[in-house]
């Protein structure tokens, strides 16, 4: 199921914040359609690594090759345009908007009409609005959150918010999906459901997934590739299956 090519390749990535070394000389590659898990104790640099991949942090040293293009630094906006989407450890949803609206914001890079057309509801706007809605509904159905589509996200329970965040990320039709502790704070049933969604994402859309996770049983059941980080340095890497 996983492709032979490396979609993402990190070479000798290092980053430090005012003397504190977050990440030191990390190199690894992630194949197409693979699920790669980053594990390690807190403070090991996992979130920082994710932030580097999607351009929120710029590494001090090293390079990233994504989809054939090598670069050292990238703005988050460009990462999104290239097809990288992510979720966050402390949910970064737009709490004042509804679930549907949040998922629709995920599609902002796919919208074909410009704001003037939308203002007067002319030209490409009406058809485009229907198309985006259709696509958003597909993701909402995929993650079984139809019942809450018009609820304000801020009022939803934590587990549902995490699902909405995943929906927003998937709405962008990403090639690479970065998940920062998607199961944090969930009980076993919820973890099972979320794992199912992640696997379904890989199977149906062929998305490459890099995820940070603490629960080893989840990691073992999901990941084809595990990278272990400790104090910013790569400890081991293993290929399972």
């Amino acid at each position, binding site marked *: 199921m996983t492709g032979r090519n490396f979609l993402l390749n990190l070479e000798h990535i290092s980053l430090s914040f005012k003397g504190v070394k977050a990440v030191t000389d990390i190199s690894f590659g992630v194949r197409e359609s693979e699920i790669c898990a980053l594990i390690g104790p807190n403070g090991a640099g996992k979130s920082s690594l994710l*932030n580097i991949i999607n351009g*929120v942090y710029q590494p001090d040293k090293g390079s990233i090759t994504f989809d054939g293009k090598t670069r050292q630094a990238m703005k988050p906006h460009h990462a999104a345009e290239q097809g990288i989407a992510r979720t*966050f450890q*402390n949910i*970064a949803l737009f709490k004042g908007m509804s679930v549907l609206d949040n998922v629709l914001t995920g599609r902002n890079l796919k919208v074909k009409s410009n704001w003037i057309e939308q203002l007067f509801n002319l030209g490409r706007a009406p058809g485009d609005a229907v198309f985006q809605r259709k696509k958003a509904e597909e993701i909402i159905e995929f993650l079984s959150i139809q019942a809450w589509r018009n609820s304000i996200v801020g009022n939803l329970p934590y587990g549902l918010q995490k699902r909405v965040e995943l929906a927003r990320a998937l709405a962008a039709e990403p090639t690479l999906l970065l998940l920062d502790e998607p199961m944090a704070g969930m009980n076993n049933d919820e973890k099972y459901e979320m794992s199912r969604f992640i696997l379904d994402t890989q199977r149906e859309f062929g998305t490459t997934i890099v995820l940070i996770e603490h629960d080893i049983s989840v990691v073992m059941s999901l990941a084809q590739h595990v990278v272990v980080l400790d104090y910013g340095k790569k400890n081991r890497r293993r290929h399972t299956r």
Partner: protein
Amino acid sequence: MNFFFEVLLGGLLAGLMYSLVAIGFVLIYKASGVFNFAQGSMVLFSALTFVSLLERGIAFWFAFGITLLIMLLLAWVIERFVLRKLVNRPPITLFMATLGLSYIIEGLAQLFWGAQVHGLELGINDEPFEFLGILLSQFDLFAAAVAGTLVLLLSLLFDKTRTGIALRAVADDQLAALAVGIKLQKLWFIVWAVAGFVGLVAGLLWGARLGVQFSLSLIVLKALPVLIIGGFTSVGGAIAGGLIIGASEKLAEVFIGPYIGGGIENWFPYALAMLFLLVRPAGIFGERAIERV
């Protein structure tokens, strides 16, 4: 050249007066993260109360004491009926609440004491005083001395006392402060009371200068650029910011003003503050907010 220094020094000293008002803001912001738009109306209210008591024949220090008590009462009412109900709301909400408060306090002040201008005599001789060939105002020097003393006292309060540390904790994280047993309500009352006291001092000095009138509450609009430049959380910054704004405002008005039509002191401090913001968003002494995603 002497003229330049005169204007400069005059501006610096005027700036200190701005700092006095700004310090009130810093206090409340430091302890609760709220930008208290009502500080200006508190200045007006305290000054009006004091002056009206004086006019009714009450002795100076008595009037001062009574006004202080009234300010304490005000602080208690504000904490009890407004702040307590708005715990943990976003800062914008709290700011807008202080906006509402400023309207209430202004309305009350003028309802009770009337809208006329009152003169205020503090007993300070305002004869100009010569120093190294430059004319200085005795009044301004007095104000500077007062400001300096206040800063000293407040710095001691914040750094050395337990209350001060508790205040800083509350400003940082209200829920955490509650969790370690800090009594939020008592602290807020203290802070608003101290801010009221500072407001009273500022009100007296400004009132002596301008007369006690409604426009006193507009001083808050001058305090904002001071805070931007000096940072919202530093008393020393309020002084530095006040000096900069006061000096540049006067200099601009005297030296640039005539070329472009005069009356620029309304917006010039703001333009300056904007420039500062673009270069140093947290102010000279302020703390940079760290945003983690």
